[in-house]
């Protein structure tokens, strides 16, 4: 470990490893104006987020509140058209209560595109200068919240990248950090072995129920969480993909089950249940990898490990993404998009432990301010769509008190 982690101290005690100005559109109709404001600040941490829908959704409202008060966010500019149903007032109040600068620009009130753009760019320019004056304070490894996701999986993902990320997770959990794995639709078939790792039998039952819910949900939709490219890469069934994906969670005891936007109460390993509750509505739970990354960030992840075999190029708004390439052929073709070459394991050039240690070192460097490949390339993907969740039950966080 070479670098010293530092962070921006926020009023809730959490620390951020980036100091981003989030520019958020609150309906698709305000998307273009928000994007044009952000485009003027390419060389700064000014990121575009938003929700496209015009109809109210409690999940989206809560996600936006958690994202706009995320420790990596230093200031927030909200872009409203004016007639959408999103509650911009309560969102602005939540951001203001967190001590962050916040402004709401309503395009209908401002008088159209150009006036809103001018006002928005001026506000962002002022706050780029304000945030540049803020200083970083020391931050311990155990203060980090790290998520993991896999995408573009193939037959190598479960052999190299995912178990190596699991080794890094084990060491983070030992250090007292918080780790979150997710995508219950890609744990179908793993429910028994996973439940056996739960901190309590009641939590084990909740983990099983979450996977059963995912299996039901996907069966109704007619497809598993499985893309055509997964089959090209050698994966034949959802349960085979699941066994590979499950390896990301490492070996640690599972401390709890959370839903998107829930902040884990303390260090440990948590499963995020991303499949909506209730009857099937609004379509697929996670329409693409970035929907999962956004949910991990909403639950406080400072950074996200992304393991890919086929070769994803994605990053994210708000939190850095560390890309771990499982397949050595893919790595050779797409090295500029990758942070770690776990494919070396297949070629006999490194062990799982060595790559796990390399991933941990990358996490520390990134938390200390080093830019990931996707950050350098300007990736700031973001997607948020409609969902419905019930709050988690008391058995989900047995050690919360």
């Amino acid at each position, binding site marked *: 470990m070479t670098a010293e982690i530092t962070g921006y101290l926020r009023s809730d005690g959490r620390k951020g490893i980036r100091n981003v100005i989030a520019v958020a559109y609150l309906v698709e109709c305000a998307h273009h104006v928000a994007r044009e404001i952000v485009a003027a600040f390419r060389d700064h941490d000014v990121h575009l987020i938003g929700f496209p829908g015009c109809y109210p959704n409690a999940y989206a409202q809560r996600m936006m509140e958690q994202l706009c008060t995320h420790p990596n966010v230093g200031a927030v500019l909200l872009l409203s058209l004016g007639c959408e149903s999103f509650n911009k007032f309560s969102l602005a109040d939540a951001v203001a209560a967190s001590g962050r600068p916040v402004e709401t620009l309503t395009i209908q009130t401002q008088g159209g595109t150009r006036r809103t753009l001018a006002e928005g760019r001026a506000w962002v320019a002022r706050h780029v200068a304000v945030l540049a004056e803020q200083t970083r304070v020391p931050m311990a490894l155990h203060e980090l919240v790290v998520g993991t996701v896999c995408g573009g999986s*193939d*037959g*190598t993902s*479960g*052999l190299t990248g995912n178990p190596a990320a699991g080794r890094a997770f084990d060491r983070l959990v030992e250090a007292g950090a918080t780790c979150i794995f997710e995508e219950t639709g890609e744990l*179908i*078939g*793993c429910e028994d*072995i996973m439940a056996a790792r739960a901190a309590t039998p009641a939590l084990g039952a909740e983990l099983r129920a979450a996977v059963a819910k995912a*299996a039901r949900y*996907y*069966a109704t939709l*007619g*497809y*598993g969480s*499985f*893309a*055509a490219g997964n*089959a*090209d*890469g*050698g*994966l*034949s*069934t*959802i*349960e*085979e993909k699941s*066994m*590979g994906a499950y390896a990301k969670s490492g070996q640690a005891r599972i401390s709890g089950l959370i839903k998107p936007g829930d902040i884990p109460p303390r260090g440990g390993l948590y499963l995020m249940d991303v499949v909506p509750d209730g009857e099937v509505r609004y379509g697929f739970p996670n329409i693409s990898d970035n929907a999962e990354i956004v949910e991990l960030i909403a639950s406080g992840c400072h950074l996200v490990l992304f393991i890919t*075999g086929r070769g994803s190029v994605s990053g994210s708004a708000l939190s850095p993404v560390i890309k771990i390439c499982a*397949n050595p*052929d*893919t790595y050779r*073709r797409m090295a500029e998009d990758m942070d770690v070459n776990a494919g070396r394991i*297949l*070629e006999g050039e490194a062990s799982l432990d060595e790559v796990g240690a390399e991933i941990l070192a990358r996490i520390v460097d990134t938390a200390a301010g080093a830019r990931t490949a996707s950050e350098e390339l300007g990736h700031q993907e973001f997607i948020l769509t409609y969902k419905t969740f019930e709050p988690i039950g008391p058995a989900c966080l047995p050690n919360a008190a």
Partner: protein
Amino acid sequence: MDITDDPRLLLLSPQDNVLVAREAIARGTAVMMGGSAVTLAIDVPRGHKVARAPIAPGDCILKYGAPIGIATQAIAKGEHTHVHNIRSNYTPTYFIEHGETTP
């Protein structure tokens, strides 16, 4: 990771009835499995599976020591084991048939 007789084929768990190709192996290559040579009938891309032993229709496919599907037809020792001859116990696998070579 345990290594079977041919180092290009990985046995992930002793109970498994499939092996995983550590690298792409060309059609016509003779690979050693359990002491006998088997000639591969197709190109096996990296990360794909071949049967370690004869598998009957309805048999459970084991990889990582865990069930990953059911054989839909008889699979010979050394045969490519994939979406054409195994199925999920949960949801059907979606794939696109095309002539594009898997990179």
